[in-house]
């Protein structure tokens, strides 16, 4: 025999099922929300950390660029200095340097020949000395001619003084 019920209602066990479903849904939703919030918070924190690290690395990169530029400038300066040093060394090591020239001139000028003046220009040298005779002048000219970095030796003047002969010589310097 069927029952007559004028209304359609949810049976009691459905009430309990709905309650259970509702409770479980709320709990799960809450857990899900908490989980999402936690994960999102962690992600935001990580993102902040990454941002901070990136900013720091950006600063470091700027510093690095500055240092690199400085280094390049210094390198360029260093290269210029090295070139200068090389040039100086080259000049120092050249046979035609001033010291060598003076040494050679000193060697040439013996006891009979007295050096009066020595004018060293860029490419040529003018020498004025006093010797006993013409032979001495030629002797000096020969000796100068024998020096490797000196050529084109010319006696440009001979002048008798009281008991000596003043002569002047010019020569070219080759590097």
């Amino acid at each position: 025999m069927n029952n007559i019920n004028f209304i359609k209602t949810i049976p009691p066990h459905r009430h309990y099922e709905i309650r259970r479903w509702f409770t479980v849904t709320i709990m799960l939703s809450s857990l899900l929300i908490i989980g999402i919030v936690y994960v999102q918070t962690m992600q935001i924190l990580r993102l902040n950390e990454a941002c901070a690290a990136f900013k720091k690395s950006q600063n470091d990169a700027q510093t690095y660029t500055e240092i690199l530029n400085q280094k390049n400038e210094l390198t360029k300066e260093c290269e210029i200095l090295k070139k200068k040093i090389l040039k100086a060394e080259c000049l120092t090591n050249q046979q035609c340097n001033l010291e060598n020239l003076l040494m050679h001139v000193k060697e040439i000028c013996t006891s009979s020949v007295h050096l009066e003046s020595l004018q060293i220009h860029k490419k040529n040298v003018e020498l004025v000395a006093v010797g006993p005779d013409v032979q001495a002048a030629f002797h000096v000219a020969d000796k100068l001619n024998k020096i490797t970095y000196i050529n084109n030796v010319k006696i440009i003047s001979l002048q008798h003084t009281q008991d000596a002969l003043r002569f002047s010589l010019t020569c070219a310097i080759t590097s």
Partner: protein
Amino acid sequence: MRFMPSIKNEIVNVSFSPQTIVCSWIKYRSASQPYHINAYQRFQLKNLELEKQIIFNPTHITRLITSFLKKYHLHNAFALFSVTGTGIFEEIITCTEASPTQQHFNIPALKKMVWDYVYLYPLDQARYTFYICGIPQELLLQYLLLANALPVNILTVTTQHMALLNLYRKLHSSSFNHSQLGVDIAKHHNNLHDYFTPKLIEPMFSSDVAINLEQELLFLSTALGLFIMRDTRYE
């Protein structure tokens, strides 16, 4: 508005009959004496609060039922309503169809009602008897509004006769048959409530409250029938 409605796993029966409201709280106990009446109270309505089953004074009726619920701490229990009276359409009808549909019952009075039918017993010459009952929609709405005003979860709104039919079936349990029901109903001139006697009902229940069974027989039978209707153990 409640966020999540509370539930109390108790069943409260409320019977509305002319000038009377009966509230009872019944629980299942054991197979030998299956029902235990925890609470039972009859309210007499003398000032036309309930006339032709129309609730004229819902405040008073709500107060009466709420006082019962409050007294026995039955807030948010499940409620079963049974209604009887002139405002309700009830009829025993003979039909030639064994399994008729609602279209087979062409009763004009039912057109504006919420109604249903139930098979009772067979007759000779391939005729079948059905119990048809209907309630006007506005009246049903009144009872639903009343239930809404009460702290209960309404489960059923039915007629007293339907509750008694259930009690009859429970009384006969395994030996129940429709032909015997027909005989018994015919014997009591279609008044099934005359079938139940104190002797028949008494073994079915125990009670905490003192009940004058002679006086309360009809209401008690209705209450038991209502409870049986929702008691799953019955099936």
